[in-house]
């Protein structure tokens, strides 16, 4: 029995050292060298400051920015998750109706229209960085108006940031909201600079 015990104990220790410490630390080392940007969270910088991760949703408010999806965790990256509300729940119906009513109050033109599914449903992670192209083009109208930009310019911006499904088949076409809004900020900065020079 003690011989078995010793063997089981040694197996436990050896595999713990190899797989619990060696393997993760080796991968950290290799990937910090090979893919430093991705290995450190795909951080986006603007004006020299870290303004977020391109993979993590952050809150945008006001008509001058594109908005991401509703989040069950208020975009708190320290506590990811979905709403976990069931498909027949009255609470789900109330949440959807309230989100729709808020949108309609700001944009009466949407009355009577069906909305893209991602626009008023909350995501699985609560940190979904993407919206669908249909959602982005719908928002482009009021973003352009609020910014005083030609609609065509904003639509071009969306098109530039649109990512196709992998191999044109797998997954969903999408636009990452942070990159899109940073692109918007760059256009605005350029326009301001052009006015100053003139």
């Amino acid at each position, binding site marked *: 029995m003690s*011989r078995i015990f010793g063997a*089981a*104990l040694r*197996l436990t220790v050896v*595999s*713990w050292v*190899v*797989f*619990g410490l060696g*393997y*993760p*630390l080796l*991968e950290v080392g290799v*990937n910090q060298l*090979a893919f430093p940007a*991705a*290995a*450190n*969270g*795909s951080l986006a910088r603007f004006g020299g*400051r870290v*303004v*977020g*991760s391109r993979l*993590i949703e*952050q*809150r*945008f408010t006001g008509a001058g*920015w594109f908005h991401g999806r509703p989040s069950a965790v208020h975009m708190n990256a*320290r506590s*990811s998750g*979905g*709403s*976990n*509300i*069931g*498909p*027949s729940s009255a609470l*789900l*119906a109330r949440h*959807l109706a309230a989100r729709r009513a808020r949108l309609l109050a700001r944009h009466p033109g949407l009355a009577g229209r069906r909305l*893209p*599914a991602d626009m*008023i*449903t*909350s*995501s*699985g*992670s*609560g*940190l*979904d*960085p993407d919206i669908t*192209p249909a959602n982005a*083009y719908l928002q482009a109208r009021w973003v352009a108006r609020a910014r005083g930009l030609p609609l065509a310019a904003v639509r071009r911006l969306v098109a530039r940031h649109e990512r196709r*499904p992998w191999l044109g088949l*797998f*997954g*969903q076409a*999408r636009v990452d909201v942070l990159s899109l809004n940073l692109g918007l900020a760059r256009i605005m900065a350029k326009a301001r600079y052009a006015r100053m020079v003139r």
Partner: protein
Amino acid sequence: MSPGAFWQIVLELLVAGAISVPFGHYLARVFQDQKTILDPVLDPVDRLIYRLIGRDVVDQAMDWKGYAANMLLTNLLMGLLIYTILSWQGHLPWNPLHFPDVGPFLAFNTAASFITNTNWQNYGGESTLSLFSQMAAITFPMFTSAATGFVVAIAFFRALGPARDKGRNLGNFYRDFVRVLTRVFLVPCLFITPILVWQGSPETLTGMVTAHLVQGGLQHIPMGPVADLEVIKHLGTNGGGFFNANSAHPFENPTPLSNIIETLLMMVTPMALVVAFGRMVGNPKLARVMYGVMGSMLVAALFIAVAAEQRGTPLLAHAGIMQHAGAGQMGGNMVGKEVRFGITQSAIFDTVSTAFTTGSVNSMLDSYTPIGGMVSLVQMMLNCVFGGKGVGILNFLMYGLFAVFIAGLMVGRTPEFLGKKIEKREIVLASLALLVHPLIILVPAAWSLTVPYGVSSLGNTGPHGLSEVLYAFTSAAANNGSAFAGLNGNTPWYNVSLGLVILFGRYASIIFMLALGGSLAAKPPVQETVGTLKTDTVLFGGFWFATVVVVGALTFFPGLVLGPIAEFFALYAHHGALGGVR
């Protein structure tokens, strides 16, 4: 179903199938001690590990009792190690966010859950565990628990193979364990982790980054060694996430490509084990029948789940949400799903994850349509749609012994399986192995629904609340780990009851299976005669399938009627008449 959804399902299945055949041949070679391509690199590694464990222990042949005892003892020690690390987390290194020690109930539940390949999580990773715990108490058992299930299956295959040395031919636990770890898990993990990092999964020892947001304010973004955990989480059909949102979290699963890689990683080993089984027992035709039966259940589940989620619900239609896929949007039920995966990649992932009992999710099952969620529930109830590492195919073989026995009685043939007579002892052990499953699901689920400390955890009411509890115990018993996560499991009652169900679901059935293996191994082979019932035919495959479905349906149908099926009808009765957009 759109052509896009159809082809995503079909192509992923074809790729998984294409990988599983050569991989299965490789597994059979590894466990029959034949030469493989990795030997020159890995033989010295294995020899070093054998020397550390003790050469004499590694060389002895084991009967089923020896194999089971060593397996249990090793698992116990590893479980204690995990419990200790979690309980002492606050005093251990790499704790950049200064998380406190994990409490005893939660530490017990987590240790039980990860040592058994279940990976049920009553905590949110990013808000509970230090980076050290994530590596040393989570990533570590992801390797060893998968290896445990794997070697038990291998031992059972040997028992069904040609008899040697009066039943002492199940192999050596330590040797099998080490060979699985190095030859099956470590090598793919080393090479696939960088692909996930390239896609965007972090791999760092920085615990958190603080961002100064575009519109002002701060966002604290936790990260850590995520990518390496993701690979073994799926390759080992483990399923526990680094983050609370599991594979829905963009850091765990950043792109459609990473989603496909994780899906394939879940599928290949359990599928390949069937191929390896055929070679190890010398009957590839039987393996093809098994592969066909399990494969057709999987195909049906995938198409039903994707179609149900794409169809959406009347509640969503009534809320004014586009329900049909169209230009630049996917329609369907996007509650709890991520845009980059859309409907199809979400439903494929969760369905595969519950078929292969991984338990990771890239979309929240609690918010699936009643039918979409039921597909996952049913697969865990059957627990043999390929199933997890090793135990899935063993469950399927238990059903197979049943089928042989019943068919033998019906047509008056001697019940034999692979040249071994199936007698009373075998049927009793197979029944026990299969009956543990419904017993530890239905009894505690019913109990939870009748006591205040059980009901108070429900996140939803009505039939969906019942589904949440039923799902929790089914997931624990099947060692799956996915959840209808609205249920708050982090209470003393659920931590302890789910922890115990997890342990019984794992070790009780494994011990019955090994005992059955020991009993079969000791039997002299019988010559095949005209009176033998052939098991490697399509006809018997159909009977095998019927046995699984009939036994599963008789056991679980009442629960399904009260949960998802009732919800389905209530949903359509209540909202079906409304429709239109307000």
